[in-house]
C-alpha cells in the first residue's frame, strides 16, 4: 500500500474556556490515502468538525491544537516536541503560518463548510470570489482564472455559468451555492478536500444530486476527500473508509462495508440500531441510553461506558485507544473497545457488567452549571 497523503497522529485540540478545558479532540489518529473518500462520522459534540479544522490549523480562539502530529505529504502541519520543562512546544520544522497559507491552504487542502449561505461573502459576486481563490492558488491571471471558474461551474452543474459569474450569492439557491463551493474547492486543484457536513443543510433530493456529482468529480479528478457528517446514510453512500468519533476520541475505523456489516464497536452498533430505515419498516428502535456527557468533564475510562450496553467495570478504569482488531488477512479494522480482549489484554469478560438503563431520558441530567451542549 502506498503512503497516506495525510496522516493524523494523536491529535489534541482543546478549548480554554472560563469553565475549564474542553477537550474537543482528545487523541485522534487517522489517515487519508490518495483518491479515497474518508468519512468522519459522529453525533453533535463528537469533535469531528474541530478535528477537520485542526488539520487546516483553522481552529479559532479560545481553541488551540495542543498536541499530536499532522503531516501532509511528509510536511509537518502540526508537530510538537517536549521541552526540558516537560511542556510541549511546536517544533521548528512545523510549517509556519505563512507556509501554511502559501503552500497548504487552498493549494493542497481545500475546505467546504456546512452552511452554503454563510460561506459566501454576500457583497461580492460569486465569480469574483471564485476568481480570487483561483488566482491565489493556481498562479494564473485574471482572465484565465475566469475561464477556469466558468469551466468548473459548468462541471458542477450550474446552468449558464458564464452569465451567473456576475450574480451575487443571494441569487443562488442553497443547493446551487453548495455547488459553487464545491467548484471553488475543485478549481484550486487541491489533493485533499475537507467537506464539513456539506449536505446537512440541504433537502434530500438536492443532497442526492450533490452526492452523485461529488462521486463523479472525485473519480474524474482523483481528489481525496474527508467527509465530515453525522448521517450514516451519507457515509454508506459515498465513503470508502470511515472513522467513527465519540466525545473527542475515535471509536471505530474501518472500510465502509466492514463498518456496517462487521461492526466491532458497541457505539457504532448502537448507533446503527437506533436508526429508522427508509428501505424497510423498523418496528422497534433501540436507542442508546442517556445523553452524551460534556466534553469538559468526560467520564473516566472508556468515554462510552456510561451509555454502553456492553460496559463492564473494567471500562470505568481503562480508556482504550483504537487498535486493529481485524483478522490478519483483512484490511485494518480498528476499534477502541476492551471486549476485544485478545488485542487489549484487559480482563474484560471476567469483569462484572455495568447496567446502563435503556429507554430513559432522565437518568443522565445536566448539572446546573452546565453551559455546553450535551447531545
Amino acid at each position, binding site marked *: 500500500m502506498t503512503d497516506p497523503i495525510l496522516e493524523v497522529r494523536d491529535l489534541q485540540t482543546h478549548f480554554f474556556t472560563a469553565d475549564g478545558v474542553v477537550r474537543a479532540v482528545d487523541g485522534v489518529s487517522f489517515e487519508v490515502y490518495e483518491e479515497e473518500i474518508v468519512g468522519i462520522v459522529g453525533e453533535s459534540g463528537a469533535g469531528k468538525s474541530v478535528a477537520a479544522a485542526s488539520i487546516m490549523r483553522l481552529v479559532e480562539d*479560545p481553541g488551540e491544537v495542543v498536541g499530536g502530529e499532522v503531516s501532509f505529504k511528509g510536511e509537518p502541519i502540526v508537530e510538537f516536541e517536549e521541552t526540558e520543562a516537560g511542556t510541549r512546544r511546536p517544533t521548528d520544522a512545523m510549517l509556519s503560518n505563512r507556509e501554511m497559507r502559501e503552500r497548504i491552504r487552498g493549494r493542497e487542502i481545500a475546505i467546504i463548510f456546512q452552511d452554503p449561505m454563510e460561506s459566501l461573502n454576500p457583497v461580492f459576486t460569486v465569480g469574483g470570489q471564485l476568481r480570487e481563490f483561483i488566482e491565489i492558488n493556481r498562479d494564473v491571471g485574471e482572465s484565465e482564472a475566469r475561464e477556469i471558474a466558468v469551466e468548473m461551474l459548468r462541471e458542477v452543474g450550474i446552468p449558464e455559468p458564464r452569465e451567473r459569474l456576475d450574480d451575487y450569492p443571494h441569487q443562488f439557491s442553497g443547493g446551487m451555492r453548495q455547488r459553487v463551493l464545491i467548484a471553488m474547492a475543485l478549481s484550486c486543484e487541491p489533493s485533499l478536500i475537507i467537506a464539513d457536513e456539506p449536505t446537512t443543510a440541504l433537502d434530500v433530493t438536492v443532497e442526492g444530486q450533490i452526492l452523485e456529482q461529488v462521486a463523479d468529480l472525485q473519480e474524474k479528478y482523483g481528489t481525496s476527500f474527508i467527509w465530515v457528517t453525522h448521517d450514516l446514510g451519507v457515509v454508506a453512500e459515498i465513503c470508502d473508509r470511515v472513522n467513527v468519533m465519540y466525545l473527542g476520541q475515535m471509536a471505530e475505523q474501518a472500510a465502509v462495508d466492514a463498518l456496517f456489516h462487521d461492526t466491532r464497536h458497541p457505539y457504532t452498533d448502537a448507533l446503527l440500531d437506533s436508526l429508522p430505515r427508509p428501505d424497510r419498516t423498523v418496528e422497534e428502535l433501540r436507542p442508546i441510553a442517556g445523553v452524551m456527557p460534556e466534553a469538559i468533564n468526560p467520564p473516566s475510562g472508556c468515554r462510552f461506558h456510561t451509555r454502553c450496553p456492553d460496559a463492564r467495570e473494567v471500562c470505568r478504569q481503562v480508556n482504550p485507544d483504537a487498535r486493529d482488531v481485524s483478522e490478519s488477512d483483512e484490511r485494518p479494522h480498528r476499534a477502541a473497545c476492551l471486549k476485544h480482549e485478545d488485542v487489549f489484554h484487559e480482563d474484560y469478560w471476567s469483569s462484572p457488567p455495568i447496567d446502563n438503563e435503556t429507554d430513559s431520558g432522565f437518568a443522565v441530567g445536566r448539572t446546573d452549571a452546565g*453551559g*455546553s451542549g450535551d447531545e
Partner: protein
Amino acid sequence: MATTGSTSDEVLDTDEGVGEADSEIESRVGWRYTLGQVKGDPTALAGLVVICFMSGLAAFATLDAVVFDYLSEYAVFAQFGMRKYWIAETFWISPVKEPLGARRLLPPAPLDNAYGQGTWDHPLGTDDRGRDILVRLVYGSRIAISVGAIATVVGMVGGTVVGAVAGYYGGWVDDVLMRAVETLYAIPFFILVLSFIAVFGRNLAFVMVGVGIASIPTFSRLIRSEVVSVREEDYIEAAEAAGVRDRNIIARHVIPNSFAPVLVQGTLQIGTAILIVAGLSFLGFGVQPPTPSWGQMLSKSRGVMIENVWFSIWPGLCILVTVVAFNMFGDGLRDALDPRLKN
C-alpha cells in the same frame, strides 16, 4: 461564563447550534444571574458605584430642596424651622444665596489667583456671585439625575406601550403607529425638544417631558423589533395553540422576554438625557436661576472663563463622570443580558 460559553460550544460542531442558543437562554434567565454577571465585570461595577453615589447626592438634595420646601407649608413642620435648603443652610452653606461680603471667583482651596487665595471653606472655589461651587454641584446633581431618570421613564413607558402594541398586533395598527413614530423621529431630537419648550415653556417639568417624548421613537422602535422577534418564538405559538388568552401571552411571555434590551437602552438613555438636559440648561432652557444645575453653571462660567478656569471645569467633569458611569453600567448590563453582543 458569558465570555466563553458561546464560543466554546459553537466549535463542538453542534449541528443545531445548541451551544449558542444555550448561553443565550442562560443569560436571559433571572435577575440574580444578571446581577452576578455585572458583579463580575469591574467596569460595570465601577459605573454602578458612581451611579449610586450620584443618586445618593441627588436624593439628599431633593429632600433638602424639594421635600422640605413642600413640607414647610404645613405648620407642624414649619415650627421646627423647616424650610427649603434647611440642611444646607443649617449645617453648611446655602447653595442659592449670595453670602454677604463673599469673595467672587475664589479659586479651589490651595490655589492662588488674581481674586485671592483659595480657602478650605470653599474647597472648589466660589462662582461669579460668591456662592460655594461644591455645594452648588451637590445640589445640581438633583437636576441631572432626576431629569435624566424621569425623562427616560417617560420615554420608556411611552415607547414600550407604543412598541409593544405595534409589535404584537402587527397589521394596520403597527403601520399607523410606526409611521407616526417615524415622523416624530424625523425631527431631530434636540430640535424637537426645543420646539416643545417653545410651546410649553422653559421650565423643568416641560424639559423632562419634552426629552421623554422625544425619546419615545427610540424606545418604541427597539421594543417593537424585540416583540416582533419574540413573537416568532415557538413558545408563543405553543401558548397560542394551547389556548392561552392573548393578554396572558403578552403578560407572561412577550413582555418579560423582550424587556431586557429596553432596560439596557434605558440605562444608556439616562446618560444621553443628562447630556441633553445639560445642553438645554446651557442654552438657558430648563431650571431657572438661582436653582443650581450643572449645565446652567457652565453657561454662567462662560463670561468669566479667563479669570477663573475652575468654574467651568468642575460642572463639566461632574457631567462627564456621571454619564460615563451610566454608559459603563449600561454596557455591562448589555453584556450580561446578551453575551452575543459582547466583543
